[in-house]
């Protein structure tokens, strides 16, 4: 998919995220908007995953460790044809599989996540299975920056580097905020690059809300042979909607009718500029 179309998709995805959160009355608005460009580029231009090959193991894999940003994932999987918009509209309704964290009951989702600090170990196991089977597919996992305080993340890192898992791509959604405040105030985690490098990873910093930068990085993986990769994707929490960006209270705030209308107008205006 070309860059222009990806950029348009990112705007459309943002509208869908806000729509499903607004209509279902719950969701993680800020984090879904910060990671949506990453998911867009992964699913539409980088990973070999589709409804057609999903039941096979001869494909890439994606584990969303920051499970709370599930509205972004639901939006992208819907657009990729894993299920209909009608299915997605059941989000948060009684007896729907579309709930506030990813589960394998939803087509296209690999693993149940939600409790933080779990996804990387699972991704390491998947990447190991690929190495054992001598397959070249990659395993991608998306972590939040606040999530890096979980000790289990670093346990997983030791195994990734021990087994030289260069088919493992860890992406950090570095939006600098978590539910209580700035990550560096809540529990400082910098220097993220040096921490991962000391654990045996190769790291690269990119703008996680810039399609062109993401394509540049994600098309050239692994960063280095025989080493697991970490992409520190600098993002803006709430990216794309002026009054949601960088606001702590938008972690899981649901837009009011007025806010929803303003957000959609803002995004529609940006979309129109592409026409």
């Amino acid at each position: 998919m070309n860059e222009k179309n990806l950029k348009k998709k990112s705007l459309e995805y943002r509208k869908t995220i806000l729509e499903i959160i607004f209509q279902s009355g719950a969701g993680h608005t800020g984090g879904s908007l910060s990671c949506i460009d990453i998911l867009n580029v992964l699913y539409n231009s980088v990973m070999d995953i589709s409804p057609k090959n999903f039941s096979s193991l001869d494909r890439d894999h994606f584990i969303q460790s920051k499970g709370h940003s599930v509205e972004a994932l639901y939006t992208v999987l819907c657009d990729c044809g894993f299920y209909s918009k009608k299915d997605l509209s059941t989000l948060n309704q009684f007896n729907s599989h579309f709930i506030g964290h990813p589960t394998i009951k939803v087509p296209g989702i690999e693993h149940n996540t939600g409790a933080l600090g779990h996804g990387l170990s699972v991704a390491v196991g998947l990447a190991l299975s690929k190495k054992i089977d001598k397959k070249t597919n990659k395993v991608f996992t998306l972590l939040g920056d606040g999530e890096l305080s979980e000790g289990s993340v670093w346990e997983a890192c030791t195994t990734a580097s021990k087994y030289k898992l260069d088919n493992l791509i860890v992406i950090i959604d570095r939006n600098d905020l978590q539910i209580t405040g700035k990550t560096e105030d809540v529990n400082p985690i910098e220097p993220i690059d040096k921490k991962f490098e000391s654990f045996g990873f190769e790291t690269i910093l990119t703008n996680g809300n810039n399609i062109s930068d993401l394509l540049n990085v994600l098309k050239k993986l692994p960063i280095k042979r025989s080493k697991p990769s970490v992409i520190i994707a600098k993002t803006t929490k709430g990216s794309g909607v002026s009054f949601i960006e960088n606001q702590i209270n938008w972690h899981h705030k649901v837009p009011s009718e007025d806010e929803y209308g303003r957000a959609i107008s803002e995004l529609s205006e940006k979309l129109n500029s592409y026409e």
Partner: protein
Amino acid sequence: MNKIGKPNLEIFSETLTSEAKKNKDIIVVTSDSRGSGKLVPFGRELPDQIIEVGIAEQNLVGVSAGLAAGGKIVFGVSPASFLTARSLEQIKNDVAYSDCNVTLIGISAGISYGQLGSTHHSIHDFATLRTINNMTIVAPADNFEASEVIKQAVSYNKPLYIRYGKKPMMDIHPPGTKFKIGKSILVKKGEDLTIIATGETLQRAYLAYEILKENNIHCSIISMHTIKPFDKDTFLEFSKNSKAILTIEEHSIFGGLGECCANLIAQNNIDTNLKILGIPDEYMINGSQSDVLDYYNMSPERIVEISKDLLNK
């Protein structure tokens, strides 16, 4: 007198090694636990089928789940005490909730580690894992059960936890016995009372049976190797026809075999006397596994006395 066999952990390792030689998809994950899991020969013979994550039990469970998602038949092996407490969230979310084909092996379970103290004991594993949906729990009693459960685990295709002790165990079951996960084994049949044991306490129940028989008291002995799913049908059949039920487990008296039986008795209006033997809620006494079990009324002699008291009620 029945023959004393090998430690069940050794049988686990021998069986798994033999199965893994036939099936390259079998992968073992260890957390610096291959020695205590008797898996050194496995590692030597099948180095491509063992993953070592170091002392990191949470990671062991997560990595096991990922390997299973990648199509492997995974055995995650770690001391029961750490595996079922420190990694409980990984067991709940990554194995059970995500429905991964992982068999977790709790080694040196119960109070196998004796004098190493409560940090190393797992008298909580039945209770914690019973409350997790989609989790099967098995505690094999003798070498036969220890081996059969591994053969079945290979094709079980569901989250499974098996706990093993490390002392040589008496052979209880005669040749031709059938073992199936979820179905208890009737070891002896008698009309006076029913003794139900799980895991390695079956040996103590069996020795008590011999003494009771000399005293002209006839009891049934049931090996309730599977704690979940519980063999409700067999239990109800025997509890309805027994004057008393005695349960024995190397576990807290809370949340294990005994409470499972009490629950069924209460909810099915069964008129029988029940006594639960296990570890009481107190700062545990220190000693070898055997001495501690004896102290908490699980010596064959105390089982006999308690059985007689139950029948005289």
